[in-house]
C-alpha cells in the first residue's frame, strides 16, 4: 500500500491548488457587501462560486436547468475536468440531443460551497490571512450550498429555474431547493437520494473523516500551509466510501475472488485480489483530484441534512402547497440510498398534495447507477422533462435542418 499511494503527483496538486482560487470555468464573485449567511451562524465574505453553463438561455429566461453534483463531483458536468483531463461526469446525460438537452435548455452546474474546484471551500485562500482557510472555514450545510446556488442563479438574472436535477448529495440539494424556494423551481428530479442522511450513512462518513484526520500529514487541517497532503488517509476514506457506492452483486460479478496479476496467494499483504487492487487505484486517483479538508466539510454537510427535522419533524411540511413537479428515481440495488428513502419523500409529497412521479429502476450496480450508462434512467428523465417543458410552454429543440444533418 505504501508504494501504490505515494506517487509523485505534485504537478496535479499544484494544478488543483490553483483551481481552488482561479477555476478553469466561469466564476461569480460576491464582495464584502454580499456576505453568504450560513446555517451555523457565521457568514462568509467575500466568497465565490465556480460554475459552467451549457446551451443558451432563452429571451424569457425560462429554460434554465440547474444540475447539482454529488459529494465529489464538480461543475464540469459535461466539459473536460481540468484536473483529471477526463470528460464531464454526466456528459451522456447533459448535451445536445441528450436527455438534458442543451439544444433546448440552458444548463448551469456549479461547484458546491465547501468544494475544492473554485467555489469557496477550505482550500480557498482566506482573504483575512492570505493562507488557505483549512478548518477556519465555518462548517457548511446543504441549505448553505443551495443558498449559494440561489445567489448565483439570481446574479444570472434568472427568477425561476425550469428544473433542478441531481443525484445523491445533488438530490439532497434538489429537495432543499424545492423546499426553500418553491416559487423558483418549476420541476425537479431527485435521484438516489433522501430527505435526511441515515445513521448508517453518517457512520460511513465518520470512518472516512477519521481516516483523514488520523493521517499524520493532516496537521490538524493545516497541511496546505506546510505543502503536505494527507494522501493515505483520504485514499482510505475513498476506498471505504467506494464500497458503499457499489453492490455486493456488482462486486462479485466484476471481481469475484479473482487474483491480481498472480497465480496464487502470496501469504502477505500485497493486493492479492483484484478488488483490493481496484480499491487502491480508486483511492489513489481520488487523492489527486480532491482536497482532504473539502472531503470533511462536504461529508459533514450531508450528515447534517434532515429536511424533516428542519420542518418540525414532519417532512410533508417541507413541501406545503408546493406547485413544483417532482420526479424521484431510485435503483433496486442501491443500499446507501435505498428505495424506501425515496418512497418516504413520495409519501410526504402526496400528503402535501404535490405533483410527483416516482420510478424505481432495475439495476445491479448499486448507488453509482445514477452516474452510469443506464438507458432506463435516460428515458425517464427525457420523458419527465419533455412533459414538464410542455406544461411550462418551453418550445422544443429546433428541428433538424438539412444542413445541420449533413
Amino acid at each position: 500500500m505504501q508504494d501504490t499511494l505515494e506517487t509523485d503527483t505534485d504537478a496535479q496538486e499544484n494544478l488543483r491548488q490553483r483551481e481552488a482560487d482561479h477555476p478553469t470555468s466561469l466564476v461569480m464573485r460576491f464582495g464584502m457587501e454580499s456576505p453568504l449567511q450560513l446555517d451555523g451562524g457565521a457568514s462568509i465574505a467575500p466568497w465565490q462560486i465556480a460554475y459552467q453553463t451549457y446551451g443558451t438561455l432563452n429571451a424569457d429566461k425560462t429554460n434554465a436547468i440547474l444540475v447539482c453534483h454529488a459529494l465529489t463531483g464538480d461543475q464540469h458536468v459535461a466539459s473536460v475536468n481540468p484536473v483529471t483531463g477526463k470528460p464531464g461526469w454526466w456528459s451522456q446525460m447533459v448535451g445536445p440531443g441528450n436527455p438534458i438537452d442543451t439544444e433546448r435548455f440552458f444548463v448551469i452546474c456549479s461547484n458546491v460551497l465547501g468544494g475544492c474546484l473554485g467555489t469557496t471551500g477550505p482550500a480557498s485562500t482566506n482573504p483575512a490571512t492570505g493562507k488557505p482557510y483549512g478548518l477556519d472555514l465555518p462548517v457548511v450545510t446543504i441549505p448553505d450550498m443551495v443558498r449559494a446556488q440561489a445567489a448565483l442563479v439570481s446574479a444570472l438574472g434568472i427568477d425561476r429555474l425550469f428544473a433542478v436535477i441531481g443525484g445523491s448529495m445533488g438530490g439532497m440539494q434538489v429537495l432543499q431547493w424545492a423546499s426553500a424556494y418553491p416559487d423558483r423551481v418549476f420541476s425537479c428530479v431527485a435521484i438516489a437520494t433522501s430527505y435526511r442522511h441515515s445513521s448508517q450513512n453518517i457512520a460511513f462518513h465518520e470512518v472516512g473523516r477519521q481516516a483523514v484526520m488520523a493521517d499524520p500529514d493532516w496537521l490538524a487541517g493545516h497541511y496546505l500551509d506546510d505543502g503536505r497532503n494527507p494522501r493515505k488517509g483520504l485514499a482510505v476514506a475513498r476506498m471505504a466510501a467506494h464500497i458503499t457506492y457499489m453492490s455486493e452483486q456488482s462486486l462479485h460479478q466484476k471481481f469475484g475472488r479473482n487474483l491480481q496479476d498472480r497465480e496464487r496467494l502470496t501469504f502477505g499483504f500485497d493486493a492479492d485480489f483484484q478488488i483490493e487492487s481496484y480499491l487502491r487505484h480508486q483511492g489513489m486517483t481520488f487523492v489527486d483530484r480532491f482536497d482532504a479538508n473539502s472531503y470533511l466539510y462536504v461529508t459533514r454537510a450531508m450528515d447534517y441534512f434532515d429536511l424533516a427535522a428542519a420542518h418540525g419533524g414532519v417532512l410533508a411540511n417541507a413541501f406545503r402547497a408546493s406547485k413544483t413537479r417532482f420526479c424521484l428515481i431510485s435503483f433496486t440495488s442501491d443500499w446507501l440510498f435505498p428505495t424506501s428513502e425515496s418512497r418516504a419523500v413520495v409519501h410526504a409529497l402526496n400528503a402535501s398534495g404535490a405533483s410527483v412521479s416516482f420510478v424505481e429502476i432495475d439495476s445491479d450496480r448499486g448507488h453509482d447507477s445514477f452516474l452510469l450508462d443506464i438507458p432506463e434512467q435516460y428515458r425517464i428523465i427525457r420523458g419527465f422533462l419533455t412533459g414538464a417543458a410542455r406544461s411550462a410552454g418551453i418550445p422544443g429543440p429546433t428541428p433538424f435542418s438539412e444542413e445541420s444533418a449533413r
Partner: protein
Amino acid sequence: MTDLLDPILSDVRVDLKEIAALVEPGSRVLDIGCGDGDLLELLTRTRDVDGRGIELSQRGVNDAVARGLSVIQGDADSDLYQYPDQSFDYVILSQTIQATRNTKLVLQEMLRIGRRVIVSLPNFGHYDVRLQLMLRGRMPVSKRLPYSWYDTPNIHFCTIRDFVELSQEVGATVEKALAFNGAAKKLPFNAPWWVWNLIATQAVFLLSGR
C-alpha cells in the same frame, strides 16, 4: 379454454372515453391503477386536468413517467392513506377494482380522498359468464383473462348489482351510471338494474360521498 368471456373484455378500454366525458375540465384527478397512463393522457389532453396516477407494475409506472405523466409506483390497498381528505376532484378506479384485496376499504378511501369517485368494472353478472359457469361448471377463463382461478390477480369480481349494493353500504350516492354491451354500445339509461346486470359487459359509476 373458451373465449366465451371475451365479449366482456374485448372492449375493455371503451370505458376510457366515457370516463373522460364525466370529468369536469381543469379538475384534479387521481387515477388508481393507471397502467401506462392511457386515461391520464386522454384526460390531460382533452380535459386539461391536473392528473396523478398510481400503478402497481413498475413497467407501467416507468412507461407513464416517460410519457411525462405524474405517476408513482403504489398499491391501491396500502397506499391511499397518504392522500389528504378531499384532495382531488375525482378519484378514478378503472378496471382495477377486481384486483383489490380490501375492496370496501379502497372504495371508502377513494370517497375520502376525492369529492367524486369514478369506478369502471367488468360485469360478472353478464349472461355469458352465467352460462359458462352453469353449462360447463368451470370458472371462466379466456384469452384476455388468461388466469386460472388459483393464480389470478383478479380476486374480487362483482356484478353491477353487487357494486351498487357496496356503494350503498359505504354511504355513496350513485350520481350517474353507464353500461355497455359487448359491442361497446351504451345501453339505454332508463333500463332497470336487472337488465343491465344481465346484458352489460361493462359499467361505469360516478359516485359521491354523503
